[in-house]
Every structure is written in C-alpha cells, then in structure tokens.
C-alpha cells in the first residue's frame, strides 16, 4: 500500500525529480518537473500529520531492514510539523520562482537552480524525517551543498563570496555534528536515535557523552545561526537569489532547530541537559543576546534583505529561548514561532524579491515611495512586519504570547519584559522600511517601474500573508500541533 511508504516517498520524490531536471536542461521543463513534484509534498506531509495525530508515531524501516540495525524513519508530532512547514513553503514559492528566476538568472542556469532547489528541499525534509544520526548528517550535507550552490547563483559577485564563506562555516558545523555523533556511536554502539536514547544512561563514559553534546550543540548552532555563530547568515541571505532567500529563511534554520530539540529532549533528556550541564543558562544568555543584537544591527542596515536577515538572527533567538526555558510551554512557544516565522519571513522575503524584480535594488534609500507604486506587495510587507513585531491579530502575537506565558510560569518577570522590549526594537527596523515605502513621495523613475509584480508572484505573497493573519486569529491548528509536539518532545524517548 502506497500510503505506508509516505515517509520514504516524501524524501525520494524531490530527490528523483532532481535527476530529471538535470536531464532535460530546459528552464521551463525543469520548472514543470519541480512544481509537480514539490506540489505532491504538502499532500503527503498532511496525510502523515493526520496519521500521526490519530494513530501515534510512524516507524518506517528503510528498505525493509528493521531498526535499530536498519535506517529508521520515525515521524511523530514534532517532525510532522516541521515537514509540513518545509513542504508547504517550498510549494507556495514555486509559482513565484518561475518569474523571479527568469529575471535574475541566465537561461542556462535555470535548470540547475531548480535541481538545487529540489535537492535542498529533499535534504531538509530528510533531516526532519530520519531517525538515524548519520543519515541526518548525510541529509544535512545534501541540503547544505545545494544551498551553497543556490547562493552562488545570485546576481552580484559578492554572492560567490557569501557562498564560499557559508561553505567553510557550514562544513565546520556539519563536521562538528558528525564528531559528536561519532563519540555517541563509540559509547552507545548505535546510530538509531531511539535506541541511542535507551542506551545512553547505562553507557558510562559520562565525559564522552557530554563532549558529544557540546560538539553537536556547536555544530547545529552554526547551522541554526545561533548568536554568536550567525556571522555567515546576513551575507548568505542578502546575496542569494530571491527565491532561495525565501526558501532558506523560511525553512533551513528551522530544520536545524528541530534536530537540536530532538538531540536535547528526545535523546539526552531533560535530566542530562538541564541538570548536569549549564546548557539552560548558556542558551538563555545567547538567546537574549541574539534577540537584541540581531534587532539592533537590523535597525542600522540600509539593504532591506540584510535587514531582514539580521531580523532572522533575532527571531532565531526567540526560538532557542523557548528551548532554554525547559518547560512544555516554552517548547510549544518555540515550535509555534518556528511555524509562524516561516509565514512572516517567507512573505517578507518574497515581497523584497518582488521589489528586486521591479526596481532592481533592495536598498532602503532606493525604495522611497514604493508603497504607492506597488501597493499590494508593500501592504503585505506591512502585515508581515507587524507580525514580526508581534501585534495582536497576527501570528507573531501568538508566538510571543506563548513565550511570555512560559516566562510567567517560571516566575521570570524580567524575561517577559525583555521579550516585549526586543519587540519594540522590531518596530524600529520594520518602521524604517515601511516609512521609506509609504511616507515618501515616489520619484518620477519610481512611478515607471510598472506597479505590483505579475499575478504568479503576487499570489504566493498573498498566501503567506494570509497565513500570517489567519493563524494569528485562529491559532488552533498551529498551536494544537505545536503543543502535542512539545509534550512528546519534552517527555523524551527513554522508557
């Protein structure tokens, strides 16, 4: 029955499709292959989510080799949520991609770009789906290598530099992860996440286990762009093609955060993470610094894409803050923000891509009065921006509501105050773009750029913006999923 093969299919479909896009080499054929295969992913992800919510965890033995010897794909509420986000965002971007990629790249590069897009999506979903530590490393590298290539396909010559720098940092991160996995394998004799969780307490060699945790945390921290390991992110996001930026900002860091949560809570368990090591204090300090440093640097940026990239550093801070609070409520807030941030950053970067499409620049100083010329797109940007700030009625409010509730539960009033304070800085950087776009009179040249982008680009922007509002008013779907996921993560896998 094909239904039972979903955990493998959702990774295999984009992987196989990428072979066909390289064979045809024609931009529009590659786009059709990519779109058809990517559109099947949210359907599969949704079917799996429903299956997980009704019948519990799915365990899939890859190739019929039973776990823990064979590679296991293990889907529970947490990774079902992540897979759903990745596949939904990847699908929504696809119609937009055709116009944007045609405008930004030479025609012989189109097919390669779609190939990399497919490989990246496949890798990201693979990281989320797999229950095997080494398999996760391989998928991490598949998604990373395709990401470097996508960034290098950007328009300016600095794209090459950004790609090179990310390649160095990303490879160090992935290698740190694999060193940690190696130490865990030496100590426990298994690579299966679930089996590892069961064997860890009796394994002995406590120092090796803690060293492995340190290596994995730093390695994934580089992929997450956790402050102060975020230096690669602003250049990579600012110099990548618009489509790639939207995909990466909405999904790539989220998948790494999921993997970190999996290692922290499911494998190590709260007792090791929070009692034997000062992980909690460390994560707390780094998250708060990220929230403020990212936002403050964003306020002084002139390039709107870089501004939004620094805002991503700050938003990642909120997600890791939820981990650091070590409670079900904090973890729920973290997971909800993971989903919500995909909507708002996806929408914001798609709008900036549309600005680049019409105007050819995303500098704030060049964007004076663009709101009058592109009212629908810039209107969507305002909604996404309000959501980043956390205004009630948008998804950003829901995330911050959960995080603040979690601080109250702990009695950390000062932290609630810091969350609100950092949101106020978001008012400043979002305000700078909004001010330039709406409160300046458009110049004569500006009036001639041709208004809102074509419908194929506008619809994805509207869909993501709609997500910002709909899930901000009725959050029962996202928060329900996130709470179930947080409970199952927090309980750990140890029996």
């Amino acid at each position, binding site marked *: 029955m094909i239904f039972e093969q979903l955990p493998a299919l959702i990774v295999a479909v984009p992987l196989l499709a990428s072979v066909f896009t390289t064979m045809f080499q024609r931009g529009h054929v590659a786009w059709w292959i990519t779109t058809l295969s990517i559109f099947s992913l949210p359907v599969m992800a949704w079917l799996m989510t429903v299956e997980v919510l009704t019948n519990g965890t799915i365990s899939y033995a890859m190739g019929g080799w039973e776990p823990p010897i064979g590679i296991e794909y293990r889907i529970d509420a947490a990774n079902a949520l992540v897979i759903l986000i990745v596949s939904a965002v990847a699908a929504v971007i696809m119609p937009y991609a055709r116009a944007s990629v045609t405008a930004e790249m030479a025609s012989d590069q189109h097919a390669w770009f779609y190939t990399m897009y497919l490989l990246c999506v496949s890798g990201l979903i693979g990281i989320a789906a797999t229950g095997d530590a*080494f398999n996760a*490393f*391989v998928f991490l*590298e598949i998604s990373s*290598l395709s990401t*470097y*290539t996508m960034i*290098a396909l950007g328009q*300016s*010559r*600095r794209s*090459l*530099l950004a*790609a*090179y720098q990310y*390649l*160095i940092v990303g*490879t*160090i991160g992935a*290698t740190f992860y*694999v*060193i940690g996995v*190696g130490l865990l*394998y*030496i100590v426990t004799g298994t*690579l299966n996440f679930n089996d590892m969780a069961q064997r860890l307490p009796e394994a002995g060699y406590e120092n090796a286990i803690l060293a492995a945790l340190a290596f994995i945390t730093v390695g994934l921290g580089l992929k997450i762009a956790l402050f102060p390991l975020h230096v690669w992110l602003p250049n990579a996001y600012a110099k990548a093609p618009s489509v790639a930026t939207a995909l990466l900002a909405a999904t790539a860091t989220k998948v790494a955060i999921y993997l970190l949560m999996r290692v922290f809570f499911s494998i190590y368990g709260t007792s090791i993470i929070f009692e034997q090591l000062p992980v909690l204090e460390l994560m707390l300090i780094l998250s708060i610094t990220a929230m403020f440093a990212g936002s403050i640097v964003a306020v002084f*940026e*002139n*390039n709107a894409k*870089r501004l939004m990239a620094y805002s991503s550093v700050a938003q990642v801070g909120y997600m890791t803050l939820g981990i650091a609070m070590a409670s079900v409520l904090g973890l729920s807030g973290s997971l909800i923000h993971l989903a919500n941030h995909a909507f708002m950053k996806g929408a914001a970067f798609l709008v900036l891509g549309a600005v680049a499409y019409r105007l050819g620049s995303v*500098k704030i100083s060049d964007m004076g009065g663009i709101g009058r010329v592109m009212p629908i797109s810039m209107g969507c940007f305002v909604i996404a921006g309000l959501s980043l700030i956390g205004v009630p009625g948008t998804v950003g409010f829901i995330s911050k509501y959960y995080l603040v509730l979690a601080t109250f539960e702990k009695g950390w009033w000062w932290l609630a105050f810091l969350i609100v304070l950092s949101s106020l800085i978001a008012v400043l950087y979002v305000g700078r773009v909004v001010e330039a776009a709406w409160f300046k009179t458009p110049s004569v040249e500006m009036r001639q750029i041709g208004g809102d982008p074509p419908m194929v680009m506008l619809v994805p922007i509207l869909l993501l913006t709609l997500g910002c509002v709909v899930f901000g008013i009725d959050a029962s779907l996202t928060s329900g999923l996130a709470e179930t996921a947080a409970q199952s993560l927090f309980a750990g896998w140890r029996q």
Partner: protein
Amino acid sequence: MDLLEGIIQRYNDWITIFLMVSGLYIVVARGNMIKKLVGLSLFQTSVFLLYISAGKVIGGTAPILADGITAYSNPLPHVLILTAIVVGVATLALGLALVVRINEVYGTIEEEEIFPLEDDDA
C-alpha cells in the same frame, strides 16, 4: 613516563586530535582561500580516523565469515566513512569551483585583498 606511554598506546587518537586542531587552525588563520579548503579537508579527515579507529577490534580480522575465526572488526564505521569521504570530496569540489569563479571575477583569492573591494553595503 606514564604520560609518554599513554600517548604511544593511544597514538591514533592523538593523530586524530592533531589533525582536527591543525585543520581548524588553518581555516581560521589563513587568508588564502585554497589554503582554507586544505585546512577544511584536514579537519574532515580527522573525523574519518576517529570513526575508523573506533571500529578496530584488537585481534579481529576483516569482517568476512570464515572457519575458525571468531573476532571480527566492526565494518559499520568503514561504511559510514565511505559516505563521509564522498561528502568531503563533494564539498572540496564545490569549494574549489567557487574559488575558481572568485578568481575569475576578482582576480585574486586572498581574502585581505578582496574584502577592501567590498566594504560598501551594496
């Protein structure tokens, strides 16, 4: 003498650590983009050693079923590292390809010569 004996007995681990640290140092300290990639490769190679030496069972033979042999080395790390080598080759190839393109565009692969050209926030 105990220290020296400890080092000699576990010489493979010390080689791993030396390669790991020197590779990472080269990546951080060198401005030449090719040298950085060399350091990155050294760093990755150290991980291969880490896995492979863990798979060795002292007195064990190659993992092929044969009469009269009971101790086998663990073959799994070799399989994993074969994959990791492929990943390493792909990373190095992509990195070198990027350096070739950077050299074409900028005319240099020294970071300290490239960064002054790019200090605007374009």
